């Protein structure tokens, strides 16, 4: 009986040691939450680097995971507009609804590029708030990291100090890494590139790459053969050094153009998990810079 009471007391009194449940819409935010949260978070990745974050099925498994989340970390800026609203309404989870502390949108904390002057569907898949692919600039990651650490500390106040410490540690390692990457990538400044999808404006802004042409005639619209021929002739007058595409994208258009224009097609990991080396945020940029430099050779 005594033993039973002791066990009962243990069950009742013992503080709940449950880790903060984080639902990350994209792998980069999952990796960032892990950097800040360490063992005190349990991260679920809703998408992989091989999936197009614009087009995700609102699968039952995602709804079930969102039901259990204390915090969702997404890009925002309409990137997930085709699937996140369904997950939010179907999950019945009040903690992660827009406006709640558990609803984190990374794009709110960085300055967005490419805000469309004209909002019309004939312009393709344009995002009213600006280009949402912010994770390709490590300086954006740093900004999101401090905002995310604040939010995590607010939700899980018991671990607030830990989160803050880990964030500071991350920031110092990160700024050192940025300096290294920038030094390494100095030769990329001013290099003209072609892109498969307008998914790299932040990377271009950071490294000083110059986007000459996009293989999609309009964002999200697959190129026709006629348009690709137009791109080839355009590249004769305004040459590019390489063609960039994200790991999740089909390699066909960039490979086709690479053969015609005689410039290398470079596949970038784009997010954590997009290549064998990009197994965390540091690896993501190590690999990105190296692949770009290889493309320049």
């Amino acid at each position, binding site marked *: 009986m005594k033993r039973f009471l002791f066990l009962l007391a243990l069950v009742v009194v013992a503080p709940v040691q449950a880790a903060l449940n984080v639902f990350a819409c994209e792998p980069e935010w999952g990796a960032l939450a892990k950097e800040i949260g360490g063992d005190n978070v349990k991260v679920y990745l809703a998408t992989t680097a091989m999936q*197009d974050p614009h087009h995700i099925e*609102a699968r039952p*498994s995602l709804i*079930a995971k969102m039901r259990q989340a204390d915090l969702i970390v997404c890009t925002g800026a309409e990137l997930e507009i085709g699937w996140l*609203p369904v997950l939010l309404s179907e999950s019945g989870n009040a*903690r992660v609804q*827009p406006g709640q502390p558990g609803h984190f949108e990374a794009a709110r904390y960085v300055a967005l590029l490419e805000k469309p002057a004209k909002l019309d569907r004939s312009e393709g898949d344009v995002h009213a708030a600006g280009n949402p692919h912010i994770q390709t600039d490590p300086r954006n990651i740093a900004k999101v990291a401090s905002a995310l650490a604040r939010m995590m500390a607010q939700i899980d106040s018991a671990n607030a100090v830990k989160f803050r410490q880990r964030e500071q540690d991350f920031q110092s390692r990160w700024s050192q890494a940025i300096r290294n990457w920038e030094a390494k990538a100095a030769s990329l400044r001013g290099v003209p590139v072609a892109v498969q999808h307008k998914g790299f404006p932040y990377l271009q802004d950071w490294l000083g790459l110059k986007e000459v042409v996009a293989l999609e005639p309009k964002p999200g619209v697959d190129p026709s053969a006629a348009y690709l021929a137009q791109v080839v002739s355009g590249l004769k007058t305004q040459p590019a050094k390489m063609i960039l595409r994200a790991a999740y994208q089909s390699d066909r258009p960039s490979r086709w153009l690479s053969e015609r224009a005689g410039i290398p097609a470079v596949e970038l990991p784009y997010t954590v998990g997009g290549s064998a080396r990009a197994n965390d945020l540091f690896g993501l940029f190590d690999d990105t810079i190296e692949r770009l430099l290889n493309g320049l050779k």
Partner: protein
Amino acid sequence: MHMFKLGKHALLATAITIALSTPAHAVTDAEWSALKDEIQKMKAAYESRISELETRVKSAESKASAAEDKAVKVETRAAQAEQPKSTTSRFNPDVSLILQGKYAHMDDVDERHLTGFMQGGHDHGGERGFSLDHTELSLSANVDQIFRGYANFAIVDEEIEVEEAWFQTLGLGKGFSLKGGRFLSALGYQNEQHPHAWDFADNNLAYKALFGEGYGQDGLQLKWLAPTDLFIEPFVEIGRGAAFPGTDRNRNGAGAVAAGVHMGGDVGTSNSWRAGVSHLRTKASEREFEGHDPADVEVVGDFTGKSKTWLADFVWKWAPNGNTRTNNFKFAAEYFRRDESGTLNCDDADLADPSACTGALSGAYKSDQSGMYAQAVYQFMPQWRAGYRYDKLWRGDADFNGADIGGMIASLGDYDPSRHSLMLDWSPSEFSRVRLQYSKDKSMDGQSENQWFVQYIHSLGAHGAHKF
């Protein structure tokens, strides 16, 4: 700065004027040249100091403007960062308009029906040639921090039908959510989809027999989502039950009860599935039907009694690595079973044209019917999908006064409708779709019909994300 420069010049000019205004006769040549030298020196000294000052001011100015530029940049960035960016558009509420229409090439059939089945509810299509389908207008937004609201209006000539108008809680906690108003029931799989989300140009025969289009009612729906990685979601609904197979019965309490459970999950990163069973219980009071007797004379009648429906659904989707962009595959199948028992009345449609029901017959009616559809849709390249659907209904038992009803009412006779459909659609973006469909339709006894459809579905405005 220019004022300052002018001042210096003025000073120099004054000095020269003074020097010149001195009476010339009193000045010797030597004195004159000395004075000239002095002035020259003064001029040079002033000029060098002026140019030095000018460069200093210029550099200060440029530094100030650079600082200002930086400040402006920081400010704009800060402002941009502060802008609220929500997942849905800034317009409140989100408005969506669906344009749909088709061209149908079909036989000229007088009274389209499903042989063996009493059909109800409203039904689209059936028109030959060019026609406009329902134009769907929907509005949705979060009402406040607790509720979400949604309305869907189907607009046809001289008629606006409120297909859905409901509120839903954003999260009651513990995985519960409550929906109230007019809504499409969570029964089965296709039931919650509006026609624009269907994978074929017309409704499957199972749903046509069950509900006409889909089962909606005015009432309440409570759902609970289990806190497990496996998706498990039971639901229960109570409502007015005015829609087929029930009827409006002017009473307090619930006219229909629906309940069921759905489950789902992933298999690896490429496959996902959802399956469920649901049950609907309702009552009909003088639910009308039309038909014909074995001599093809028209009859009318009505049914009063209980109606119970069981529905099982299964959906399986595949996309390589979960990336649906290039290739993806979807399989969906549903099976239903319906029991009805009560009394049936039948009479001549035209008293001058006596039928098998002449003199108004009334008697016990009991039926046990079932049906299914199975469909597969494959996206073989970006923007292009091809699909096949098979429909089959089993009339089963349908007894009127202890004998098969077919002897009295041939349109409810023992015949199992079936149909094969093939479709090809092209979607240049997620907002537009053009579809070609061919069907071999045997839904009426003695009829084997080739049907062709060309259909368009376009979406304007904030097209809400589709469910799984």
